C-alpha cells in the first residue's frame, strides 16, 4: 500500500485514492478534425512505461482533487507529486 502525498491533504494511505492512468494526455481540442488513427492514438494508445511514469491520481476519499504523480513503475517508488496545471518537475524524464 503506497503512502501518497496528496498535494492538498498530505500523506495518506493508498486506499483513499484512485488511479487515473498516464498523465498529460490532453484531450484534443478539435476531435472532429482528427483522423481515425489520431483519435485511436488519443483514446487507446499508452506509453505504459516501465520506469519513470507521469500519472494521475485522484484523492477520491479525501479532497476529491486530481493531481499528478511521478512514479517509477519498476519499483513503485513515488518520486514527486504536483498539482493539475503545474509543470512536471524537470529532473525526471
Amino acid at each position, binding site marked *: 500500500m503506497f503512502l501518497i502525498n496528496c498535494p492538498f491533504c498530505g500523506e495518506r494511505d493508498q486506499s483513499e485514492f484512485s*488511479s487515473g492512468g498516464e498523465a498529460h494526455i490532453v484531450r484534443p481540442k478539435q476531435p472532429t478534425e482528427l483522423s481515425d488513427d489520431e483519435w485511436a492514438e488519443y483514446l487507446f494508445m499508452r506509453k505504459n512505461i*516501465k520506469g519513470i511514469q507521469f500519472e494521475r491520481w485522484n484523492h477520491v476519499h479525501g479532497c476529491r482533487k486530481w493531481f499528478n504523480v511521478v512514479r517509477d513503475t519498476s519499483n*513503485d517508488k513515488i518520486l514527486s507529486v504536483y498539482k493539475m496545471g503545474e509543470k512536471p518537475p524537470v529532473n525526471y524524464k
Partner: protein
Amino acid sequence: MKNKYSVFSLIKNALSQHENWQQAWGNPEPKKEYEAIIVGGGGHGLATAYYLAKKHNLKNIAVLEKGWIGGGNTGRNTTIIRSNYLWDASAGLYDHALKLWENLSQELNYNVMFSQRGVMNLAHNLQDVRDLKRRTHANRLNGIDAVWLNTEEVKKFCPIINTSPDIRYPVLGGTLQRRAGTARHDAVAWGYARGASEMGVDIIQNCEVKGIKRNGDIVEGLDTTKGFIKTNKIGVVAAGHSSVIANMAGLKLPLESKPLQALVSEPVKPIIDTVVMSNAVHAYVSQSDKGELVIGAGTDSYVSYTQRGSHNIVEETLKAILELYPIFSRMKMLRQWGGIVDICPDASPIISKTNIKGLYFNCGWGTGGFKATPGSGDLFAHTIANDEPHKLNAAFNLNRFVSGDLVDEHGAAAVAH
C-alpha cells in the same frame, strides 16, 4: 521421439537410478541468424515456436527468454481453462484452444495434467443472471458446452458454496462448462519447450532483448544481451512487458500493465472438486492436485511492473471467498504472489501483424491468457508464417482500436478470466 516418456521409460530409468535421463530441452548459444525469433519464453511463446516448427515447417527458430522459461505469467496464474466466452470471435478462439488442450498431453508426450473438472460462474444479481444466461445461450449455439444451473443445482454441484438467500449477494444461479478445468501450468511451458527443442528450436534463456533493428519499415534483427541476432520475423509474446518491447520498435500499444495477484492456501484433503468463479463478488477458487486452494485476486488499478501489488486486493478477494465459503475461514494463506498482465481496453487479446513488416505481437491477454495457450500459439504461428491472420484470430487485430470494432468482453470477463 528420442526421449519418449512413459511408464516403461520410468521403470527402465529407475533401474539405473535415473542417471540416464536426457535433457528435456537444450541450452544452446544463439546462432547469428534465424528464420523467426519468438521473444518471450512463456507458454504462448514456446507454443508459437512449437507450432511454427511443427505445422509451418520453419526449423531455424529461436525463442529468447530474458529469465527462465515459464517464469512469467505462465508460472504465476491460477491455471483456469475454459472457453465460455460471449462473442463469437472469442468463443472461436478459446474453444480452439480448449480442443487443443484436450489432446495436449498426448501430443506433447508430456502430462500437462489437464483436468476437466468443470468451471462454474456464479450470478449474484439480476443483471449477472441476464449476462450469464446470454453467455450460456451464445455458447450453446456456438457448440460450446454450457448449461445454466439454478441455485439448488449450484449447491448440488458444489456443496460447500454458501447458497443461503440471506447473504449479502445471494447466489442466484450459475453457468457451468463441464469441459473446462485446470492444468499444471509449469508443465505446459516445459512440455512445449521439450517438443519445440526436439524439432530443433533453440530455446535461449537469460537472453534479454535490448533493441529491435529496423530498416525502414522492415525488421532486421534483435539486439540482445547475447549480442545481435539477425532475423526477418519477430513474434513478440512478452506478456506484461509487451509495451516495453513495442517501445523499442517505436510502437505504442493499447495496453496497460498491472499487477494481478493470486494466492494459495496450505494443502488440505480434497474439499472442492471444480473451479468456481464469481465476478460480482470478485472471487474464484479451485484446488490443486497437491491440495492447495488456488485463489485468484483482482488487478491493481495502476500500472506497475513490480510483481508485488497492494495488500487490499488480497484482502478483498478473501472477503469474498469467506462470504461464499465460510468454512474456509480457518484455512491459511501459504503464499501470495503477483504477475504483470497487460490489459487491452476491450479485455480481449491482440494477435496481430503491425505496420512494421516482420513484427508481430501477441499480447493483451489481461488476466486470462493461460487458458488460450495452445490456441494462441497455434494462431500466432499461423499469422507469423503466412503474414496473415488465421480466420480465428482475424478479429483480434490491432486495427480494431482504430475502427472501433472492439471485442468487448468486459461484461463476460469482468475482473477475471
